[in-house]
């Protein structure tokens, strides 16, 4: 079969236009319930021969099944029932007329009842909107023919068989009619669950915004007279929100980039300067890269404390073979040769640390010209 396998979960079956012998009802049902089309056909033929129930059932299926997967299945059977109930008079009328015809033709009670019921049902179906389609008309006609056949066959069969046929028709019809509705209910439940999950997500977003953005906005209003503090609050919040929106895990990552971002955030908050970290490539933290990160942190901290510049640029480039970090400010600068020996900052925590890990540190600075610290591994 070339069409993709459908499952019962897709609701009502679809007429199989490719594998069809007649209208595609049997092939469609076979595909829908994943059974052999041959079995379904034999079942219909047997039902049709045994009193005509198969013909009526075929008509019913033809009416109810969809012609394509895109065509919506009959959704709510209560809707159909309401429509049908609205035309009960016509149904009754058709039943009475059919009964009169049977009586006129000399038929007995056993013929009269099924024919009248079949004609009435067909009229109701017709009135409920199914009659406007070609398919609906053929289906309804088949159902009437089936009902007539049942009626004419009934006297020859025992009561038991007649009863059994009626039950089979009823059951099959119910499954086909109410199946999709029931599945629709199940689907509505799923939709409801999805909606609940969405609401939960929304609540989480709201909670996050409440804890972060609204808090910061409240703080900003109270600190409105301190521009430096306000700028710092805004920047911290911006960084935080940006990371959250982009699901950016860099700050939490166990890499050189992550270490630099963490150091930058911490120093930004502590010293009210802007630290811009740009990283090309990355490398996981090991002893050496951790030392590089720590030395870089020290360099950023020095710049924040002593340079008096509003902004510090941190640029890192990392690959498996090498790693470099540049920390640059445009602040006061100093004469590296004139740094007193007791200024442990640069000598120990930067130069010494890099040397111990097989790296190198170079400080370029001049009074008034800013400072750049170059660290490499």
């Amino acid at each position: 079969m070339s069409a993709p396998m459908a499952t019962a979960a897709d609701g009502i079956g679809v007429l199989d236009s490719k594998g069809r012998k007649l209208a595609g009802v049997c092939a469609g049902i076979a595909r829908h319930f994943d059974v052999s089309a041959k079995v379904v056909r034999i079942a219909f033929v047997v039902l049709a021969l045994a009193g005509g129930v198969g013909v009526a059932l075929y008509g019913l299926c033809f009416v109810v099944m969809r012609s394509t997967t895109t065509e919506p299945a009959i959704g709510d059977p209560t809707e159909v029932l309401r429509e049908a109930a609205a035309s009960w008079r016509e149904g009754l009328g058709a039943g009475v007329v059919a009964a009169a015809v049977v009586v006129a033709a000399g038929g007995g009670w056993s013929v009269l009842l099924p024919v009248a019921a079949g004609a009435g049902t067909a009229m109701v179906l017709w009135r409920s909107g199914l009659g406007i389609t070609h398919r609906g008309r053929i289906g309804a006609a088949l159902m009437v023919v089936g009902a007539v056949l049942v009626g004419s066959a009934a006297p020859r069969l025992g009561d038991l068989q007649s009863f059994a046929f009626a039950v089979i028709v009823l059951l099959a019809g119910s499954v086909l009619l109410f199946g999709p509705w029931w599945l629709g209910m199940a689907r509505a439940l799923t939709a409801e669950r999805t909606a609940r999950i969405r609401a939960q997500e929304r609540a989480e977003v709201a909670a996050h915004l409440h804890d972060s953005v609204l808090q910061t906005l409240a703080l900003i209003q109270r600190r409105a007279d301190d521009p430096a503090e306000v700028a710092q609050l805004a920047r911290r919040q911006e960084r935080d929100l940006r990371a959250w929106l982009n699901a950016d895990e860099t700050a939490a990552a166990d890499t050189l980039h992550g270490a630099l971002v963490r150091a930058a955030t911490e120093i930004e908050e502590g010293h009210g300067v802007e630290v811009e970290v740009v990283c090309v490539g990355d490398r996981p933290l090991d002893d050496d890269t951790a030392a590089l990160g720590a030395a870089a942190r020290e360099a950023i901290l020095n710049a924040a404390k002593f340079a008096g510049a509003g902004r510090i640029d941190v640029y890192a480039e990392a690959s498996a073979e090498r790693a470099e970090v540049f920390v640059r400010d445009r602040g006061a600068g100093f004469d590296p040769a004139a740094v007193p020996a007791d200024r442990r900052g640069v000598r120990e925590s930067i130069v010494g640390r890099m040397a111990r890990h097989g790296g190198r540190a170079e400080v370029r600075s001049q009074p008034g010209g800013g400072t750049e610290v170059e660290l490499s591994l």
Partner: protein
Amino acid sequence: MKRVVLVDDHALFRAGVRSELEGRVEIVGEAGTVDEAVALIERTKPDVVLLDVHMPDGGGVAVARRWGGRDDVRFLALSVSDAPEDVISVIRAGARGYVTKTIDAERLADAIERVAEGDAVFSPRLAGFVLDAFRGDARSDASDVDQLTPREQEVLRLIARGYLYKEVAHNLGISAKTVEAHVTSVLRKLQFTNRHELSRWAMEQGLD
């Protein structure tokens, strides 16, 4: 003074930029939508258009594409976003630079000046993106625009380190004009390269 048009859907932000740039450039108009912006540019023919990347009706990308590089009007993107796809898409649409909204007034005025002169403006972050995007070997059939020359890489690296153009020039022992030429060449590569990382972003924005 350079004549500048502000395009941003937030009036409050336009007012902020206007007051910051007061006395440094001449703001000849403001627009809040793509249509308004195109009409305003048509009418005023400014030197530089400051372009917000995110606007409800297509944003700076739409404005730059609809204008299509006529009449020496230059576009400088000014955005809150520093997501690579935003940067790349607006550069590919024809912007000659990209700066984030946290830039201070002096740097912004400098960037406007530079873009008006026909140069490209790369923030440290944009330089970092470009280096990242052009990293690794290009395919063997790659053309010139798919890779950076060693000199271009050096220039970008210094910009990423926070160097101004004249400092880059000094550091490399070349003239500032040469630095500008390198940066403009990188911008051109950024606009025309078929490198996977960049064309993918552009494709997602429907630009290719």
